[in-house]
């Protein structure tokens, strides 16, 4: 346990001392709120849950694996592999730090919404929303793990992650309403990972209630999370592809 704690402290310090990580994880979410607010300030009550989910999506698919990919490319993971540290402790410690970052990001977005745009947030709404955000984060991060596993370099991981991000952003009922999409796509989207998170977080934050289909959404996210974690674990590599 002591080893895990020391490693987690080290991982935290590394994230806090990395300018790239700091900008994309803490400055960018607030910037995102400012950009959305500049365009549609009167709809920020409605937009804020969407921004939280969009941010969690980009964080999970791309940003959360950046440092791990860097460590793999630089040979740091290989050096760690030469120690008796079990892989599960390394990944567990890394995930823990990233989950905390993901949760803090959503808090920053909410604080920015309240302070800048007087977004209406209730305690009950937050109480319901946070577990849903957490479900979403875990599923997105597991999917990000698959992307890291199949990518030879961090650049290609970012490209794959951002492509999926933009695709899901436009079709998952966050920017455009679902009924604007073609019929066949309307039938597919509810089974994609971003849509259930958007529904769960939106109804929690706007109405302080669970979405009527919350059970289905959560089961779907669990399936994505567990399935993707399993695949990501199989694809995990200590060294870059040669």
């Amino acid at each position, binding site marked *: 346990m002591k080893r895990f704690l020391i490693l987690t402290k080290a991982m935290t*310090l590394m994230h806090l001392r990395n300018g790239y990580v700091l900008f994309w994880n803490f400055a960018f979410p607030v910037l995102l709120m400012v950009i959305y607010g500049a365009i549609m300030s009167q709809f920020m009550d409605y937009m804020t849950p969407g921004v939280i989910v969009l941010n969690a999506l980009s964080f999970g698919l791309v940003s959360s694996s950046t440092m791990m990919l860097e460590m793999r490319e630089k040979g740091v993971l290989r050096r*760690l592999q030469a120690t008796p540290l079990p892989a599960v402790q390394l990944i567990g410690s890394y995930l823990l730090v990233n989950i905390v970052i993901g949760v803090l990001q959503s808090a920053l977005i909410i604080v920015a919404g309240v302070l800048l745009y007087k977004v209406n947030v209730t305690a009950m709404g937050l109480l319901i929303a946070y577990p849903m955000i957490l479900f979403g984060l875990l599923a997105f991060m597991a999917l990000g793990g698959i992307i890291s596993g199949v990518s030879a370099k961090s650049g290609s991981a970012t490209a794959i992650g951002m492509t999926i991000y933009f695709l899901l952003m436009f079709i998952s009922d966050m920017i455009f309403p679902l009924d604007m999409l073609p019929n066949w796509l309307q039938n597919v989207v509810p089974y994609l990972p971003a849509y259930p998170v958007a529904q769960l977080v939106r109804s929690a934050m706007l109405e302080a209630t669970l979405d009527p289909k919350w059970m289905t959404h959560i089961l779907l996210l669990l399936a994505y999370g567990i399935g993707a974690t399993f695949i990501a674990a199989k694809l995990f590599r200590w060294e870059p592809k040669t």
Partner: protein
Amino acid sequence: MKQQSMIDVKNVTAAYGALTALNGVSLNVQKGEIFGLLGPNGAGKTTLLASVEGLHKPKQGDVHVGGISVQADPVATKRQLGIQLQKTALLDDLTVAELVEVYAALYEVYLTSKEIDSLLARFDLVEKRNTLARRLSGGQQQRLALAVAIANDPQIVLLDEPTSALDPHARRAVWDIVRQLHDEGRTIVLTTHAMEEAEALCGRIAIIDRGQIVACDTPSALIANLKLNSMLKATVELPLDQVRALPEVSAARYTGQYLEVESARPEVTLTALHELAARSGRSVRDVALRQPNLEDVFLKLTGRALVESN
């Protein structure tokens, strides 16, 4: 006194896809020795170390560390090892002191701040304890990699080209550290393609080329067993066929302006060379005598020069 085997490699064959990196390699490292793996880049030195470190799974053969099979119990063997990889890659967003603390903790060794400073003092890094690792110079990073390698107080230390890319001053500082570690009773295995490093540090050397060990002994025995000749070097212009006919000469050639003559008895050859030069109305200048070294051993055993083949 009975010697204790610390590393035992038996008939190891390793490959990367279709490329065979090691071909039936066997060797044994005894407790308390500095053992060198000498060979050009791509010879298989790093793969051999990686097999001992548990980072590369051989296709065939066995590796034991401290009597434990690496394949059967990699965690137990890793605990006995201190490792410095060829490419220094540490968690470089951490400070020097944090790094030492973390790497020791990975072995479940928990150092106090005082113990960390004491370790850093040995590597002349105390003043850098709060500096981020990525801000250190190349020599300091290499010393830090060595400090990290022994943070878990291992009995066996594996160093993969510990002085590559270092200037002569930094290289000598690393040599001193390696000698200190040896004086503490640790067993050290290091790889190098620098002949002078192997000669300066190693009690025994395995010469490795194209995935095979071509010789293994003490540096002096390697040189003596091959009955290599000394090399006379001088500035003089003489026909090579006449030089080759001088007593005790086994080979002669011109390298640039220098005449190089291999001789079993250089004092006899030098006298004859002076006489030959005098008869031709010339003089022998800039005479230098070089004893055979590991470079010559490598050339003799592989037909290639150690440096040229890098």
